[in-house]
C-alpha cells in the first residue's frame, strides 16, 4: 500500500487534513503528519519530517503533500539525505494539500501503485469548484 505524509506549517491544518483524508480511506493506509514546530507553533520542522520519512513503510511508495515554501524546501532537503533507492519511492505531489490528501487516501487505499496515485492526485485534485 502507498502511504501518505502530510507536511504543513500548522499542526492544526495537518491534523485536520489527516482526519478528513482518513474518513475517505477504503482500507488501511498509513497517513502521517509533520505539522508546525514545538508542538503547535507555526513553522516547518525538518527533523520531524526526517523522522517520519525514516519510520514510515516505503516499500510501495510514499506520497507527500506539503503546503507553503519552507515545508516544500525542508522536504526536498531531507529527501536528499535518504538513500537513493528510498528517494525514488518518495514523491512530492504537485497538488493542493487538502484535496491531494483526500484523493491520495482514496487511491492508495484502493491498492493503486505509486505512479497511479500520483497521476490521479496531480490530474484531479484541482477540481472545478463552481461545477461540482
Amino acid at each position: 500500500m502507498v502511504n501518505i505524509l502530510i507536511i504543513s506549517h500548522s499542526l492544526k491544518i495537518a491534523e485536520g487534513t489527516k482526519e478528513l483524508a482518513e474518513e475517505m480511506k477504503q482500507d488501511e493506509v498509513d497517513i502521517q503528519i509533520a505539522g508546525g514546530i514545538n508542538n503547535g507553533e507555526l513553522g516547518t520542522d525538518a527533523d520531524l519530517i526526517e523522522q517520519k520519512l525514516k519510520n514510515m513503510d516505503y516499500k510501495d511508495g510514499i506520497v507527500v503533500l506539503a503546503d507553503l515554501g519552507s515545508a516544500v524546501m525542508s522536504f526536498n532537503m531531507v529527501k536528499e539525505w535518504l538513500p537513493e533507492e528510498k528517494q525514488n519511492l518518495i514523491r512530492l505531489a504537485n497538488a493542493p494539500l487538502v484535496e491531494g490528501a483526500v484523493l491520495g487516501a482514496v487511491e492508495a487505499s484502493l491498492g493503486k501503485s505509486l505512479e497511479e496515485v500520483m497521476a490521479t492526485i496531480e490530474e484531479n485534485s484541482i477540481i472545478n469548484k463552481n461545477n461540482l
Partner: protein
Amino acid sequence: MASETKKLFLETADVIIENKEYLTELDAAIGDGDHGINLARGFKKLKEKLENENFESRNELFKLTAMTLISNVGGASGPLYGTAFLNISKVISDEQLELDDLVEIAEEAIAGIQKRGKAEAGEKTMLDTIIPAAESLKQSRDNKHNLDTALSDCLDSAAEGMKSTIEMQATKGRASYLGERSIGHQDPGATSSYLILKTFIEGYLK
C-alpha cells in the same frame, strides 16, 4: 583557527538575537512576520551548542552550525542558511584564508541557497545581498587587491545589494504573494544576510 571562527559565529548569534525585532518588523511588512523570531531561535540554540564545544576544524564548526540552524529555525531561512553553511563546510580549510578561498566560499554558499530556494538575483531575497558581495570579492581578486580592502569593498557591495531590495518586487517566497505591494520594503532575508556578513567581515578586520 577554528576557535577564532567560533568567536565570529558567537558574535553573529548575538547580532541576530539583538536584531530579532527589527528583522521581524521587516518581515511583517511583506511576509509572515517570523524571520527575526525564527533566526533568533536558531542562533540562540547555536550559541548554546557552541559555548559547550571546542572544534578541531572549521569544517566541523560549519557543519554543526548548519545542522543546528536546519533543526531549529523553523522557516525557510533554516534550510537556506543551513545548506549554505553545509556547502561552505565542504570547502573551507583551516589555513589562513586568501581571496581565492573567499571567492570559492561565497560561490558555494550561493550554490547552496540556489539549490534550496531556486532564486536568482533581483527576486528580493537574501541572494541580493550575497551575490553582489561575491561579485565584489571576485573583482578584488582579479584586480589583485589586498584582503582588507577586498573585505571592506565586499561589505559595501553587500549593503548596496541589501538596499536595492527596497525597490524590487518579490517573485520568490511568501512576499511574492503581495505582488507589487512588496515594493518599497527592504527584504528581511537580504537584511539578515547583510548582518551575518557584516559581523564576520568587521570581526576579521578588527
